């Protein structure tokens, strides 16, 4: 773990809010991006990001070297659980959302979103929805977040070799999914 991360985590375990605040500043962007692409909605992403850090504050004394000493990897694990939990709770809403890519797109794109954001985040979000849960996590963590195969394995509870084997199939899957999404956009 980064020396300063270790120092800040140690202080945060002693309930030093200022230290935790520094950890927040350091990693909030990446956690937000991970969640944002998964949920496809800015407001939800804001909410869930704050929940991830709140859970991290509550359970920071459970942070263990199992996460390869990476506080970020641990945060991704928490983020993954928070997103899964939200999907589970909002299953009915999500199933309505999943009825059609374009309906979901309309609901998610707010007027202030610029064109680039809509093309990348929205398309990616929609394409990710067509992947299996594992493929989605591999794409997000390995390619979008740029974590190592070992770190992704730790977060997903899989062997590094398994992740390396999965990543090619995952990228192929997202490529096909993006193609489908673009076809849908063109048809519109």
């Amino acid at each position, binding site marked *: 773990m980064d020396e300063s991360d270790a120092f800040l985590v140690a202080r945060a375990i002693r309930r030093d809010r200022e230290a935790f605040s520094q950890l927040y500043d350091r990693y909030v962007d990446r956690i*937000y991006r991970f969640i944002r692409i998964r949920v496809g909605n800015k407001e939800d992403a804001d909410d869930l990001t704050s929940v991830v850090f709140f859970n991290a504050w509550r359970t920071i004394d459970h942070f263990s070297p199992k996460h390869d000493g990476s506080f970020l990897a641990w945060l991704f694990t928490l983020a993954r659980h928070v997103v899964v939990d939200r999907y589970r709770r909002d299953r009915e809403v999500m199933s309505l959302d999943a009825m059609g890519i374009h309906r979901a797109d309309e609901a998610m794109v707010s007027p202030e979103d*610029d064109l680039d954001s809509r093309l990348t*985040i929205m398309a990616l979000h929609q394409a990710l929805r067509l992947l299996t849960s594992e493929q989605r996590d591999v794409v997000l963590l390995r390619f*979008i977040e740029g974590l190592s195969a070992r770190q992704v394995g730790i977060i997903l509870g899989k062997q590094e070799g398994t992740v390396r*084997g999965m*990543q090619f199939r995952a*990228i192929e899957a997202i490529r096909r999914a993006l193609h489908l999404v673009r076809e849908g956009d063109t048809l519109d």
Partner: protein
Amino acid sequence: MTDIEQLFDNLLDDVASGKRSPEECVALCQETYPELVSSLKLALALRTAIPNEQEIEAARVNARRKLDALLDQDEEASAGLQGIRVRPSPRRKTRWLVAALCAAVLALVMFGGWQLSTATASALPESPLYTIKRGDENIQLQLAWSSATRGDVLSMIALHRLDEARAEAARNNTSQALSLMGECDAATRQLIGLVITTQSQRQNDAALTRALMRTMQAEYDALQQERSNGASMMVQALTSTMTNQQSTLNASHIQMPPMATPVPVTPTQVAPPGAATHPAATPHPTQQPHATPTPRPTTQPNSKGNGGNSNGNSGSGNSSNSGNGAVNSSSSGSGNASGSSNNHVNSNDMGHGK
């Protein structure tokens, strides 16, 4: 992994480590696996799929505001973040409910079991609960694998029978009382047998000896009480039982430690537990030999150091008892009150007759 998967993985590592640029990787890919190019390009391009800076900045502020609200709320609730709690989810609530229900049922069962156990403990043969009591004893005896545990169970059974016999005697149910005394004696004899076996095998018999002492002490106490109650039948039964048990112990050279509590005695009574009366009985290491009676200054408040009798005639004939502190009905020495003036012998002095 297949070749193409391996190449893909290697190229990703190369880019991550800075060994090759993304453009170099794509060029290499076009030469070897052209079909991999689009996937590799996508993999490398995904890093750029980030929300715009304005959105990130807004999210940073919004999430921070919400987080601070959560932390403040939590801080207020737990006074200094010592016991942070989040509102339990419905599923967690259900789990708590189930756990509480299970605990309540368990407590009810345990309370019921305790009540049943209490009720059966005092059950007499004519009680419907008596069968349960005896069944429980049998189970405990069957489950007692070690000799120490078996000794404890036998002691418990003997004491149960003794209590029951006394209760039946108090209700003038003589035949039942005598029958129960017989069972008490049988259990005690089993215990004695266990002690004999253990000692002969030179095993640790401390726990067994304690169990036997406890049993015989209880019999002795019962004898005293029945005597004071004037229950001649029980006195006779207990005297007979204890005398026989004592004889068995003496014949087997069983060493009994001194008693821990004072036992009221009078002349013409059986010896209390630990008072070996048989001449051949192996004396306790701290005991004085029978043949060399010595004064017992600590047991005679008025003895003024003149030994085991009140008239200063130390050791003039009560040699069978003065050494081990026991007062025995057979100890009628010449010119000696032989305990008539010391109705209370401190059991702690037994075997320490200096």
